[in-house]
């Protein structure tokens, strides 16, 4: 079932087109990756699916229940004056739930991302990877059905990125929400997603779809295997072609 879908959606800022007609759906229980060059409109697609922006033409359909959509940005985007716990509790408190309940849920969620020792720390006391984990906990605490990830690993060093990606996969498999992962890292897209959509340079539109037929475990063996390599090659070729076409 599609949780959120675009049909022929375009976005233009005045006369400047930012997104050419685009159709895509985020399915429940599946991870879809969206790759493309910087400024091709990937984040615009994400904002449309989140319901934070309306398309200039075309339609956005959202069947996901209100309050069950979460968003993670490239930077952790934590409120610097709140502790890790209060940051994670924020979405629940804003939804009108009692503070004690929100606090308990936040602590449980922080424990799930491996930060039970850091609940009282302020964002400036956290490393980049820890801050991203807090942001992830804040996104997961509302038990989202639709999880929108806007290059969440881009600002991290390679080692932190790998461990966080594996943790995201593990967390995802517990509740299996529908995920749209926006990224410009092809390996990351193929490793996480079961289909990869390739966008053309600005104004973007989807030019290719590569599926990653792997139902087994996504781990280092998968990364070393043939399915992974072939999918990476297919996505790379699609991006080259899209760049050459413009």
């Amino acid at each position, binding site marked *: 079932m599609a949780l959120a879908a675009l049909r022929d959606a375009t976005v233009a800022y005045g006369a400047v087109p930012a997104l050419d007609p685009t159709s895509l759906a985020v399915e429940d229980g599946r991870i879809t990756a969206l790759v493309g060059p910087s400024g091709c409109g990937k984040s615009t697609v994400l*904002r449309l699916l*989140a*319901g*934070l922006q309306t398309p200039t033409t075309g339609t956005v359909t959202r069947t996901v229940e*209100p*309050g069950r*959509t*979460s*968003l993670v*940005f490239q*930077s952790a*985007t934590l*409120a*610097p*004056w*709140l502790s890790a716990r209060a940051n994670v509790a*924020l*979405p629940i408190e*804003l*939804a009108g739930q009692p503070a004690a309940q929100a606090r308990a849920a936040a602590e449980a969620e922080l424990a799930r991302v491996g930060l039970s020792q850091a609940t009282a720390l*302020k*964002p*400036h006391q956290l490393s980049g990877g820890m801050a991203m984990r807090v942001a992830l906990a804040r996104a997961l605490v509302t038990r989202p059905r639709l999880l929108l990830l806007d290059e969440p690993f881009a600002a991290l060093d390679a080692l932190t990125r790998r461990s966080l990606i594996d943790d995201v996969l593990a967390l995802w498999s517990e509740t299996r929400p529908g995920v749209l992962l926006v990224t410009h890292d092809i390996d990351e897209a193929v490793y996480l997603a079961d289909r990869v959509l390739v966008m053309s340079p600005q104004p973007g539109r989807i030019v290719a779809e590569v599926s990653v037929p792997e139902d087994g475990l996504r781990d280092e063996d998968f990364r070393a295997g043939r399915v992974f390599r072939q999918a990476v090659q297919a996505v790379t070729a699609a991006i080259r072609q899209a760049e050459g076409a413009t």
Partner: protein
Amino acid sequence: MRRLAPLILAVALLGVWEVACRALTLPAYLLPPPSAIADALIQRGPLLALSAGHTLIMALGGLMMAALVAAPLAMLAASSRWAAEALRPFAVTIQVTPVVAIAPLIVIWAGLDHSQRAVMILAAVVAFFPLFSGFLTGLTSADPELERLFDLYGARPLDRLLRLRLPSAAPFALEGLSVAAGQAVIGAVVAEFVAGSGQSQGLAWRILEAGHRLRTAEMFAALFVLAALGLAVHAGIEAVRRRTKHALGAPR
């Protein structure tokens, strides 16, 4: 050692001053030696402290008045572009008009027998702009991605104000407060000069009074106390800023 540098310079300058006054036998009404000023400071100390307290109350009262007006106006300006456009020229006009020039008018409006009211209002007038612009900058400087998350969470306007905009504004507001506090002391003293009547008991009046009597050492003593007052107010605000910095999440 480097921290002591200003102190060493001050002592050296005072030494040169003292020696020069004695060597050149300058008349005390023209330039009293530092020893005479120190003497005046001790003799008139209690009276000067009382006056400093009076000026301080006027300045802080003005500061509070300004904050009470500036905060809601800044919130209004932050919530509506129309209001911001409408308010800006007025705020700038208040900023660029010399307080000395409007003081006589305020003295008349406040009532000639109520010079203290006029002093407090004038302190508020000069403290207004830094506070207003600090509040306004702060209220509009919340992280746009956090704003988007608040959109996503369907935050109510009051929640957005209390949980996002006000905490984001706090560092800027404190910055504005720091500037405004210094301005309020200046405003209070200027207003005391202009309003200066028998009723006035602030430091400006001590300076005027000593000047009329050619007690130059006392003028210097009052100036010294005034400078100390300004520094104390500044240090007080900085202490508040340091203490809140951690709560607001900025690295120490």
